């Protein structure tokens, strides 16, 4: 089947989509957007987190056909500037705080953290832990990631 959707602000069309296919597969294999990672395929790890009509979801658990006509934002859509070369607030904070080691969980964490900071400009540590509780990282021990989100939130506050 054919699926039409908007990804990072651009209308996209995927053809020959199998009916049991996930949105994650469509993004990675059909639309050439491999930023969202494929790991557990059961919603446990959060590495495929994208925003579907604004809401963070695991792309591996959304059937491709359910994304018809919807708006998807992936990690590729976070960077700003005309050609997407300027890191977003959260991306810059992750690099500054050393929140990236192997990097596999990073895209999902960036999408989840970006949504948190937009929704709650002054998150408590409990808010941060809750917002990131669906994203697993096996390298960092999370401390640097928490630092990065605090940093992003503080910078967002300064920027007003």
């Amino acid at each position, binding site marked *: 089947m054919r699926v039409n959707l908007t990804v990072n602000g651009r209308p996209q069309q995927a053809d020959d989509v199998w009916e049991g296919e996930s949105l994650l597969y469509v993004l990675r294999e059909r639309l050439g957007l491999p930023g969202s990672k494929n790991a557990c395929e059961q*919603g446990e790890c959060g590495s495929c987190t994208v925003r579907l009509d604004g809401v963070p979801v695991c792309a591996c658990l959304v*059937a491709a056909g359910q994304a018809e006509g919807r708006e998807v934002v992936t990690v590729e859509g976070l960077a700003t500037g005309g050609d997407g070369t300027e890191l977003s607030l959260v991306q810059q904070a992750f690099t500054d705080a050393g929140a990236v080691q192997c990097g596999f969980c990073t895209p999902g964490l960036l999408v*989840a953290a970006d949504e948190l900071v937009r929704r709650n400009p002054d998150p408590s540590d409990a808010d941060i832990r809750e917002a990131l509780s669906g994203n697993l990282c096996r390298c960092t021990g999370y401390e640097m990631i928490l630092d990065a989100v605090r940093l992003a939130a503080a910078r967002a506050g300064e920027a007003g």
Partner: protein
Amino acid sequence: MEFLRPGSWEEALAAKAEHPAAVPIAGGTDVMVEINFDRRRPEYLLDLNRIGDLYEWETVGDEVRLGASVPYTRIMEELRAELPGLALAAHTVGSPQIRNRAGVGGNLGAASPAGDSHPPLLAAGARVEAASVRGTRLIPAEEFYTGVKRNALAPDELIRAVRIARADGPQQFSKVGTRNAMVIAVCAFSLALHPRTRTVRTGIGSAAPTPVRARAAEDFLAAALDEGGCWETGRPLPPSAARRFAELAAGACNPIDDVRGTARYRRHAVAVMARRTLGWTWDAYRGGERGARCA
């Protein structure tokens, strides 16, 4: 595989009548796992995402009619006062990403004994609104679960909503797992006090082939509260009554040993959760609710 995409509830019922083997998919948090892991290859997927009615809740008299697909995130945020037990359970489901997609309809459809919404639905006395082209019927929660991952739905039926009495007293939910997020319950317990009818109801998850009520425990506690005049006086419960309630709750379990825990541990944990939730709810009744009413 065919992807059916009804645009209205009537179309969905017609599609289910025409293709009874069609697997409904809403949040996808169960169904997609089975497809991703090649455990299931349904001939038809019946997408319910386009049916706005399923994403709404309304209050009808003393009842909340909760659309089958209202995500847990919204249950937590919007229904904490009306459905406190379910809202607490909703907060323990998966992760934010899962709670943004998953709802009570999927929990009921999957009918896993470990589903987090089952204990509070049992404790609140919920009824499942099952619909087909033949009409609508209301199935009490305790009659809905018929076996491990089996429910009382006919092949042509879909879950439209769940009707749950608005809380008339304190409700609690407790769940055992290895961490706070992303946990399938080792076991779970929910307790609802119903001061209006001077009854109590319980729900036990993941400690029997289906979610169950601990009826002997409920009857014992209701009698103990009545005899002691506790509903009127709000006096503290004697520890012996709490202990007996806990024993009877454990006695209602019929657990197995599996990767998440042993049967023995589950019985023990259910007793502990029964005693704790009784303490929390009774304290709330004595303090907040009765106090507010007296003042």
